[in-house]
């Protein structure tokens, strides 16, 4: 107890001295830090903040100090997060290396893999992308066909991936490849890492209905990858793939956490909260005049509150170092559906001003609502559709008979 109190005091003091003032304001889209070999820092204090946090290993507080992580206990991480939240500190970095790859490398990677990649992930020096989905393999991910053939000391990789987030900006990729075609589909998959600057790789951004292009098509044409880059055992990549998906779901479920908060575009924005927007655009002062919308917003916020408690409870219930479990599917599904509800309600709250596409006549925040509403539709598709999550819950959590067992072969 006393040790934790000390930890809290020293953490609070350290943050007070080391977290720059501009890093204590709500995050804006342009200032999100992704790291990488040639990182961009729209706000110079972002770099300072990242470097300071990385020096302490606090970008990855639970990871072993041996690889540059923070080496903190679960109780200490809870305190660190509370202290960060207390001063509204921005995340020092947003990184697929941290939220997805790192945890599985620590679990399944060799010592060499860890030594090579983990410290760079902690420091945000390499930006990673995820090579999972393929044009013909969406929800049925295990049917993937991108091939890796061993030729001497290298694998030759051929095929294509789709929905590769930020492939055009990433330095390295963690990728699922087929290494055996003569066995049931789950048994011939391997997990491999390679440099995106290798010869034979090309990427093409995909424009979404929101107008943004966070995803790419990625093509591999005889890409040469050292055999040692394969993680875990040959043809046993599906286990790692599924584990990584649990981490991905946990990451995506945090969209739902943010959805209950007034976190958009700073405190002065007219769309900072749904209820605030609903009252502002109706000219209401003390009570929202549309009683139907009022009920819907209350229902949404009650669900958001209960979801935030659930998310915290799942952290408290997990054992030290155990990471996410099957409930990650529940959190992913509920969090994404909540985020979609949030944007539907925001449209109702704002009315026609939330339906602008571009140009004058709309504020920047209003235009962003339109775009974010459209973007939110992907939340229940990316990282496994809501329907896939419900399948996982039914099978793994509730123990209901597997409807797909016959189709697996």
């Amino acid at each position, binding site marked *: 107890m006393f040790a934790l109190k000390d930890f809290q005091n020293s953490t609070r003091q350290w943050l007070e001295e080391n977290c720059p003032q501009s890093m204590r304001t709500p995050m804006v889209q342009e200032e999100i830090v992704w790291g990488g070999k040639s990182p961009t820092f729209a706000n110079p204090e972002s770099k300072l903040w990242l470097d300071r946090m990385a020096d302490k290993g606090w970008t990855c507080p639970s990871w072993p100090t041996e690889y540059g992580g923070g080496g903190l206990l679960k109780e200490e991480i809870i305190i660190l997060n509370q202290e960060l939240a207390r001063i509204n500190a921005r995340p020092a970095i947003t990184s697929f290396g941290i939220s997805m790859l790192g945890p599985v490398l620590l679990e399944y990677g060799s010592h060499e893999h860890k030594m090579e990649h983990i410290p760079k992930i902690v420091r945000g020096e390499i930006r990673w992308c995820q090579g999972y989905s393929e044009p013909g393999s969406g929800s049925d991910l295990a049917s993937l066909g991108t091939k890796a053939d061993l030729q001497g000391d290298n694998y030759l990789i051929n095929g294509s991936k789709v929905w590769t987030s930020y492939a055009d900006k990433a330095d390295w990729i963690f990728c699922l490849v087929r290494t055996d075609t003569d066995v049931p589909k789950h048994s011939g998959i391997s997990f491999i890492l390679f440099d995106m600057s290798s010869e034979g790789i090309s990427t093409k951004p995909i424009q979404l209905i929101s107008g943004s292009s966070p995803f790419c098509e990625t093509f591999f044409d005889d890409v040469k990858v050292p055999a040692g880059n394969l993680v875990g055992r040959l043809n046993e990549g599906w286990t790692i793939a599924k584990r990584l998906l649990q981490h991905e779901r946990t990451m995506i479920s945090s969209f739902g956490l943010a959805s209950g908060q007034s976190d958009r575009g700073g405190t002065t924005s007219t769309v900072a909260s749904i209820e605030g927007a609903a009252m502002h655009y109706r000219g209401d002062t003390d009570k929202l005049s549309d009683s139907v919308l*009022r009920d819907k917003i209350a229902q949404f916020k009650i669900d958001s509150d209960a979801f935030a408690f659930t998310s915290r409870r799942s952290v408290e219930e997990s054992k030290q170092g155990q990471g996410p479990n099957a409930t990650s599917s529940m959190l992913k599904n509920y969090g994404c559906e909540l985020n979609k509800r949030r944007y539907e309600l925001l449209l109702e709250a704002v009315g026609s001003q939330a339906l602008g596409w571009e140009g004058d006549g709309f504020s920047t925040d209003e235009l962003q609502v339109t775009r974010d509403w459209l973007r939110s539709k992907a939340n229940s598709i990316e990282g496994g559709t809501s329907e896939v999550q419900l399948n996982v*819950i039914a099978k793994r959590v509730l123990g209901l008979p597997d409807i797909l067992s016959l189709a697996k072969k």
Partner: protein
Amino acid sequence: MALVLNEDQQLLKDSAKSFCQQNAPVSQLRRLRDSDDAKGFDADTWQQMAALGWAGMAIPEEYGGYGFGYGGLGVVLEETGRSLISSPLIPTVLLGASTINELGSERQKLELLPKIVEGELLLAMAIDETTFHAPTKFNTTATKSGENFKLNGSKTFVLDGHIANKLIVVARTSGESDSAKGISLFLVDPASPGVEISRTHMVDSRNSSKITFTDVEVFADNLLGDEGNGFAGLTRVLDRACIGLAAEMLGGIQEVFDRTLEYLKQREQFGVLIGSFQGLQHRAASMYSEIELCKSAVIAALSALDDEHSTEKEISILASVAKAKLSEVYCLVSNEGIQMHGGIGMTDEFDIGFFIKRARVAQQFLGDVGFHRQRYASLNGF
């Protein structure tokens, strides 16, 4: 604020679970209903519950209680909710003892709370007058006559009203209906002249009654709290009661879901288990998710009650979150429980019907979903 049970609470929960399963399964409620039991609860079971300390769980030690907090009372309520036990736990302990503890004088606490802990004193709280819960909208008046008060009005949906040794009556000593000012609470002897109590039979087979008061004389020392300033205390009581009720509902919700899930793994149609059908799997998975949120809403609210740093406003918000969410989900899960059981779920012989009946009465009591959503909106400034 802890969101997981501590070791003591977990032990208490385990022992409450086995007690309820062994001593008061759903068949007890069925027997009380079918025999039209005059008391409406099983006196032996209640004495055993009191002997286990359940009545004194949230009562401070200086008044004979066990100081286990609402977290302790909550896990007990949850387990009683699983087997739908009809007992004085809600009217006497959750509402009654909380009122005396929150509003009573030192003398009243010393006199009444130890008797509640022993299981000797039964209380009933008379609040609502219309068919909807509205803690400021009522017309029962208590007018000064000399040193004492004269009570006039009528109340409905009074749990255990026909068996209580003492009634707690919410009345107006001044002000108009819908005003938070002028509200006072009184302890009233149900045997007083002018008190007329008629038992009502609710769909959940639990006790309820309608009570009229005609020129009932109440001595001034039976006032609970300050005259005319009872609303803040009443709010604290109702918040605690909503949270405790939500804990009871959580038990019922989990029990219906567990029974339904079990049925999906047993029942065969078209040559396969019906639990293999995606049309049912996805609904079951959605219910599971909603139930996880319910668990969190309840434990967050219970911990807030036992946390000295919580503000009353925070507690009010958490109470409305819990009552609104649990009401919504209990209705969902009990409806689906019947649908997924098919024809057998519609029969009285099968227990699942008891849960849908309890779900509706519990959701109505102390404010339904709509009431608590509106209250949540007001508390959050919209």
